[in-house]
């Protein structure tokens, strides 16, 4: 069991490989934003990984990065317009970080490092693993940050016009300790991420070199 947890942490894109930290620091203000960002990335990752894996034999090595970027860019643009049409509130709260998925090092990293060398089935498996791991990390940070920083837990607010549900709860009874402005600010998320890194490394155990 301990080995499995350790492997899970080690292969986690954020806490194991430190990929895709920019959205992690920027959009984790609410739980909803965090998991929706993770799901968006999962979606892009699956599509781009499968296409990259399918065309891997015809792509010349020298120009593979521009080709991959173009492929990722196509999917991100599709996603952006979909969000813009159906959930405009989410689009405005995620803002620039949706288009920035194009240059997210996680997506490009998996395309270059994994999908371009493996077959379709393995690539999709890898994309699922990475995407879910990323969603998990973002959600974890998002929950901690939202509860400490604004004393609420938003499950569904921006997507209400699609799902029909509004779910936003106050976590603790009104008090003066929480909400704490510090955790709503960028400095707070750096501290949370740093502490989580330390904590997960403690669980995993640092490898002896």
């Amino acid at each position: 069991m301990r080995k499995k947890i350790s492997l899970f942490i080690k292969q986690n894109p954020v806490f194991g490989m430190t990929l895709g930290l920019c959205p992690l620091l920027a959009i984790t203000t609410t739980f909803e934003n965090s998991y929706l960002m993770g799901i968006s990335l999962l979606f892009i990752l699956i599509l781009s990984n499968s296409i990259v894996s399918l065309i891997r034999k015809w792509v010349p090595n020298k120009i593979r990065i521009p080709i991959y970027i173009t492929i990722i860019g196509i999917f991100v643009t599709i996603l952006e317009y979909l969000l813009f049409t159906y959930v405009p509130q989410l689009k405005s709260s995620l803002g620039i970080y949706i288009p920035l998925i194009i240059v997210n090092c996680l997506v490009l990293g998996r395309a270059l490092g994994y999908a371009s060398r493996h077959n379709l089935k393995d690539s999709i498996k890898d994309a699922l693993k990475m995407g879910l791991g990323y969603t998990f990390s973002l959600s974890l940070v998002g929950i901690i940050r939202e509860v400490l920083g604004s004393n609420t837990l938003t499950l569904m607010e921006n997507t209400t016009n699609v799902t029909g549900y509004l779910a936003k709860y106050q976590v603790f009874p009104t008090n003066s300790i929480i909400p704490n402005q510090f955790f709503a600010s960028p400095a707070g998320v750096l501290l949370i991420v740093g502490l989580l890194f330390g904590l997960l490394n403690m669980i995993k155990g640092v490898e002896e070199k």
Partner: protein
Amino acid sequence: MKLVYEKGPYLKDSERTNKIMKRVLLALVPIILFSFYKNGILPFYKGYTNIYGLFQPLILILTAGLTSLGTEFLYNKYLLKIKNPLQGKYAFFPGLFFSLLMSINTPLWMIVMGAFFATVVGKLLFGGFGHNIFNPALVGALFITVSYGALIPGGYLNAFELDTITGPTALATNYIDSFPKVIEAFGGIGNYIFGFIPGTLGETPKLLIIMSFIFLAVTKTIKYLIPLTYVGVVFITTFVIGSVNGLDITFPLFQIFTGGLLLGAVFMATDPVTTPTTRLGQVLFGIGLGLLTVIFRFLTPYPEGVLTSILTMNMLVILIDELGDQSQRKIILKTITLIIGLGLIIGTGFLIGNKIKSPVEVDNNYQIIEKANQKYQVSQKGFGGLIKAEIIFEKDLIKEINIMSQNESLWQNIEKEDYLQKLIDQQDNLEALDTVSGTTITSQALKDLIKNTKDDYKE
């Protein structure tokens, strides 16, 4: 000689470290006693507070120190499993210094939280005494200021002052315009020197702090170069700022004798662990601190310029020490560095002085150009000139805002945020509306415009 980075303080003799800490504690005793007198005894004697208020300053300081001590004890004993958890750790100090930076009105739970944060995040997570990059006390103080700054009731005023003085601390007011008023409001320059002005627990008794500095410098306990350059740079820069604006020598003196500058310079910026060891490094550290403090005070709306600048310079200590070490052998490098530093000091003074030369006049900002039944034509001074607008009322509420002319540099941000619509939506609760980031002055001007027009309409 090669500079070797190890954990500070660099005196290997633990006897010496012990002595240093004892002397610092000794130098703090009069300051703590004065704080007790000013914030506890004086209000009690004049009948403004009860018996708890009498001992409140001591309770706050002790709580902070004991929280620090307890946190470090538990952490070392149960997490790191060290045999003598408190030996040679000076665990009391982060909390003690932290409490001196807090105001008398700080609730006890905030003190506990701040001291805990200071000890854990500022000190223990880095590896304990000698390994920390940032001054732990300042980390805790900044954490509390950022998190709960607005929650402290009464700000910096103690019970006695709350009744006699109506105003924020001297530094919180506009510097240049109201500067003579500020001194008179607190009873002349003597009160500034002896410490009977509003302020945090430890920062007010300037004379005692200066005496502590002399004691610590003569006994070679602290790096005396840092406070000297720090205060010197602030003096020169604000002197230039004052001269550009036609003020005399009292202006730079006022800048030095208000706020936490002296306390920060003598006790926080000379921490043996988080400051440079080379002589040139110490001078550069002081120059950087002075410049940053002046910039934070005059160009940003944020409080705690001293805290922030010390923490910022803490980050650069290794770089500064490297430069100081290199220039030990190269006189040219040393000279160039010092000349650049001097140029920066004077340059910053002139730049800031010219920038604040024509402060926005608060009273004459708003003007009603034309006034019809439900229609106002008004103007408000913004960032780049006058904002002219047409405001249409419907019943008692503003229905429409038409901007007729404006010369704001970042107007597109206002449009992007749809700020005008937000202003209309929240017109009854304008204080709660945030300004648009990056265009604070413009959005504030718009808020004032709406508020003033509404006030006039109601009449």
